[in-house]
């Protein structure tokens, strides 16, 4: 019976391919026998989030190599320093793939610490898995407000405030300047649309109705006609809320159109200035406004880890890459983990979470003050508004128009 042979072959292949997927399970090692602290995370080497995910991952691995040079991270539960090992997989910006990989990190690799990939989309699938497997998720930049619920203690946002809070200072500034004609175009995704909602409601509270407020698909790459439509409303301020690709396309179209407005605002030049300088040229972001993030935003008072200038130097030396916000965010995640391990009395995930709450508010890193609320969402860091100045060589500097410490 040839066919039974085929079926047998199929069965063998099934088991073989499963075996290929990972080793057989073993029980989680007890705290005493731990030789190293494994940190499991994902990065996106391709796809929509690669631009942001890769530097963030570099920041985290940079932190790990730094700490391993000093003999490892101090783990209070073990009363000793233990080397850090990063276990990481490429999720290709696909949330579907990320699901299997988060699960792999928890169930097969049995990592001690779970760190999410960049952004809300890739973080989202980790939230229920982490909660179900009772693993504390170190969420670096997944700012979706819905991740944070009182019933879920297994998440901590390390870097940014939830996206709905971002436009607070922007709205303040617009109202303060007395702009009454404001045009907003936003990409219709979670991240940008929630900002648009906040911004519009804050403006409405000050009796300002935007003269133009339209959503465009996130895949939009040509803004010329949209820009022309906006300029017909004679706006004083033009706000574009998008992902980096949207901001680039928007600024390109703006440059080509020759239009001029009192104020132009985009989100990502403040986080990824080098990307914008190389893709749209220094002149197109000159005099525009943004949310300046570290390293454009530096904090004078740093009580934990490297400060911005030190990080800039050391990171460049170690990786050859220049610093941007996301590499700082990745490094900052490492610092939070470091502090957590040195505070927690055991490696139990809930006691890690309690440790985070204990030092919340007292930690100041190059990313600002680390402070979370009871749901694990970040409230310490805020995003000020700044005006970008570039010189012809591509050096970017920022002049704050709202207080960075508000």
């Amino acid at each position, binding site marked *: 019976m040839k066919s039974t042979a085929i079926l047998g072959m199929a069965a063998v292949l099934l088991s073989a391919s499963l075996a290929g997927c990972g080793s057989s399970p073993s029980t989680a090692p007890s705290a005493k026998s731990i030789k190293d602290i494994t940190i499991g995370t994902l990065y996106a080497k391709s796809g929509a989030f690669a631009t942001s995910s890769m530097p963030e991952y570099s920041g985290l691995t940079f932190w790990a190599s730094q700490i391993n040079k000093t003999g490892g991270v101090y783990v209070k539960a073990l009363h000793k320093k233990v080397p850090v090992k990063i276990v990481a997989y490429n999720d290709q910006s696909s949330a579907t793939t990320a699901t299997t990989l988060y699960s792999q990190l928890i169930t097969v690799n049995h990592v001690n610490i779970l760190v999410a990939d960049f952004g809300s989309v890739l973080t989202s699938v980790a939230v229920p898995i982490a909660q179900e497997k009772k693993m504390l998720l170190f969420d670096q930049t997944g700012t979706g407000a819905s991740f944070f619920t009182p019933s879920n203690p297994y998440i901590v946002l390390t870097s940014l405030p939830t996206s709905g809070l971002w436009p607070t200072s922007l709205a303040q500034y617009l109202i303060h300047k007395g702009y009454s004609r404001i045009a907003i175009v936003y990409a219709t995704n979670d991240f940008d649309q929630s900002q648009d909602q906040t911004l519009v409601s804050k403006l409405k509270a000050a009796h300002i109705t935007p003269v133009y407020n339209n959503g465009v698909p996130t895949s939009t*790459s040509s803004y010329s006609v949209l820009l022309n*439509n906006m300029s017909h409303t004679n706006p004083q301020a033009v706000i574009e809320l998008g992902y980096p690709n949207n901001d680039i396309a928007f600024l390109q179209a703006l*440059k080509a159109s020759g239009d001029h407005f009192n104020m132009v605002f985009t989100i990502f030049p403040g986080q990824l200035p080098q990307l914008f300088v190389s893709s749209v040229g220094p002149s197109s972001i000159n005099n525009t406004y943004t949310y300046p993030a570290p390293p454009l935003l530096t904090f004078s008072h740093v009580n934990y880890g490297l400060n911005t200038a030190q990080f800039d130097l050391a990171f460049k030396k170690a990786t050859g890459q220049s610093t941007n916000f996301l590499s700082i965010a990745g490094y900052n995640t490492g610092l939070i983990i470091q502090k957590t391990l040195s505070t927690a009395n055991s490696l139990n995930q809930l006691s890690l979470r309690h440790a985070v709450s204990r030092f919340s508010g007292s930690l100041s890193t190059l990313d600002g003050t680390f402070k979370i609320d009871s749901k694990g969402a970040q409230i310490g860091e805020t995003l000020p508004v700044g005006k970008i100045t570039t010189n012809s060589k591509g050096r970017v500097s920022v002049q704050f128009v709202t207080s960075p410490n508000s």
Partner: protein
Amino acid sequence: MFTYSLVSGILFGIFFGFMALGLNLIFGVMEMVNLAHGDFVVLGGYVAIMALTSLHINPVVSLVIALVLFFLVGLGLFFPLIPRLSNSRDPEMLSLILFFGLSQVLEALMVIKFGVNPESLPLSVFGNSSWHFLGQSYQIAWIVTALVSLVMITLTYVFLYYTSLGRAVRAVMGNREEALASGLPVKRTSAIIFAIGIGLAAMSGVLSPLMIGSLDPTSGLGLTTIAFAIVVIGSLGNPLGSVVGGLVYGVSLMLMQTYLSSWSVLVPYLLLLIIVLVKPSGLLGKGVRHA
């Protein structure tokens, strides 16, 4: 606002008509849908971007480079793949799958070679002047693109209607069996048209960053769908049909961006579905099943 949308819709439309031209020719002559069409467009875009950034070659020159280079690529792909397919039992379906595979291969190669970040050409590549028309000003890059597109569409038209090779092509488009029976060199004609189709796709790709903003390795499939919609809206095998299809697409897109911006991404898909479902007889031709 309406004038600006309309005029830029027309400029876009002419370009998209050109972008769809290669797909149209190959479909018309060989009854095969080149699902990798959009990937060749993207490759043309990368040729222009690389030529400009590393060799400082103006896109106008890249137009010629892309056409010639990908004409040769087309020839190189034709002989190992297509004759074998034409002899198979279901050439239409198998070619669709084959080109789908080719499209995946090209996308993977582009990711390996160029990375995943979107790349673009500066809109000021043809200078910073602009064209004033009916009280609005339009970017010179758009005007150049539309003009080049018009010239290429016209040349293709002249080729098809006023050269002997072109007449052979039209004979094959009309009826492949009869053309074979009457001793026309169908295989050679198909090879040349295939190569021209790929070459034109890459050539339109050179200009594409100026019209659609930026390109990345995954842009191909979307462009193929747009091109297919345009070909279906216009008529098979007729370069002027591509212009009609392109204009319908371009103007609809721009009006949608102006009046219902959050739905604008649906334009090519809705146009395609409306055409194939509501008016299948007139514009669909071979696509209708008899059963």
